[in-house]
């Protein structure tokens, strides 16, 4: 079977990333970031607390690392002029985008996979045998999240004409707003749309509020991984969900099970739909960027 035309681009991108020390520095950082056992999480999850470490590793530090590793994928070639040389090869612009996303995804997934294995070994030795299905499930969803992040970063890199702009768009817009600050911004959007103020410690049982909150790829990722972990229906970190649901602590984390207690939960708030949100972020920005990239000027 013939390899796709974009395969050499993907291989070059993956090899370049895997030869970089920065890529491999991410692995130990993810282990340190992810390993955070608590007495409460052990009480609720038992040995599966190790699976929770993977979710924590996949939150905040991983998106930042993946964006750093991929945000210059196209813009670097555009500003240096090597993009014109690349297009001189028998490749379409779509091939270049797909090759960049695929190759950089592989380059970002491998250090994360190494961190996951180390977390699994440390957790397995200390806390005993965890559910391999849940562990693999959370790992695979995190791999999907990495591909989504690479896709968004590549899309931004393809439609901007300067490194400053792509840096601002990705770190000021995507990371700061959609990853770190979405809980506050999502609530503000909900309040602006409905006119209802939200007390974060006692949120209203309104499906729209929770739907807006999980539109963020990071919260969608945690919604799906919390579902696999079995902690609860929420886009918060599993430790925060445990605080709300099992310790009864009033926090500013939004948990469907606590807010809709005794009420019918809208179907669109099912955790599996977090996968649809992730797929949306993986496909739509790249498709829009591809449309513009194919018709844009390379100067």
């Amino acid at each position, binding site marked *: 079977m013939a390899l796709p035309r974009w395969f050499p681009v993907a291989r070059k991108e993956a090899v370049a990333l895997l030869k970089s*020390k920065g890529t*491999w*520095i991410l692995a130990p950082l993810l282990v*340190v970031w992810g390993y955070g056992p608590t007495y409460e999480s052990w009480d609720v999850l038992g040995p599966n607390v190790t699976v929770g470490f993977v979710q924590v590793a996949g939150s905040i530090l991983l998106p930042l690392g993946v964006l750093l590793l991929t945000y210059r994928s196209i813009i670097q070639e555009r500003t240096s002029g090597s993009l014109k040389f690349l297009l001189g090869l028998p490749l379409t612009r779509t091939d270049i985008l797909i090759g960049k996303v695929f190759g950089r995804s592989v380059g970002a997934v491998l250090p994360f996979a190494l961190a996951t294995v180390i977390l699994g070994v440390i957790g397995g030795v200390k806390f005993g045998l965890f559910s391999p299905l849940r562990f693999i499930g959370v790992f695979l969803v995190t791999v999907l999240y990495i591909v989504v992040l690479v896709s968004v970063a590549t899309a931004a890199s393809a439609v901007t004409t300067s490194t400053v702009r792509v840096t601002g768009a990705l770190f000021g817009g995507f990371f700061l707003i959609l990853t770190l600050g979405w809980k506050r911004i999502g609530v503000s959007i909900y309040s602006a749309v409905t006119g209802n103020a939200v007390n974060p410690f006692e949120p209203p049982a309104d499906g729209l509020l929770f739907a807006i909150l999980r539109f963020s790829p990071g919260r969608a990722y945690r919604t799906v991984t919390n579902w696999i972990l079995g902690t609860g229906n929420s886009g918060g970190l599993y430790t925060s969900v445990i605080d709300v649901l099992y310790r009864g602590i009033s926090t500013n984390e939004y948990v469907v099970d606590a807010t809709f207690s005794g009420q019918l939960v809208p179907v669109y708030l099912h955790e599996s739909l977090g996968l649809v949100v992730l797929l949306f972020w993986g496909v739509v920005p790249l498709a829009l960027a591809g449309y513009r990239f194919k018709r844009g000027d390379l100067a």
Partner: protein
Amino acid sequence: MNRRQYLAVSTAALSGLAGCLGDTEYTISSVETEDGSHPLALDVTPADRAIEIESPGRLDITLRNTGTQDLRIKNTGVWPLGVLGLVSAGDSGSLDVLLLTDEYAEVDTVEIRPNGANKDNAPLTGTLEAGESIERQYELIGRRVSGAGTYTLQGYFDEVPLSYRTGENTDWVAYHPTVTVTLTEQSVLS
């Protein structure tokens, strides 16, 4: 920095930092008991010194009648040792630590909640015959420990865990031996 140096540095950093974001675990580093002039003796022995996330520390507490007469023992909660706790000695700022025992689940006089406990104050009495001893095991859950330091073992609700008397017509005598338990933080590299 070559690849070998990088691997060595990153492994050392990883080992040193692992667990920084997790909850603190403790070790029961010492237990010292001082009995007064009573016909009772209390032995406190660590059955499991490690207070870890996945397993609590354990203290075996034995109450012995060292006298030649039978003793009536009165307390509340569960007989004969009651609801015990570790109270911070000195100004360490640590909060009291409730000790747990399986017996709480077998009685309706003690209710344990995630962040506290309730106890029925109805007195419980029983006889400890001369030379007899009773052993109970109490657990130290790390979640309930607010910090390392030196603690005094005593009743969680009442400072005096039990009283005794030798006959029906004698007065109840408060029994509160001095037991100090020292907890230290576990090293992340241990």
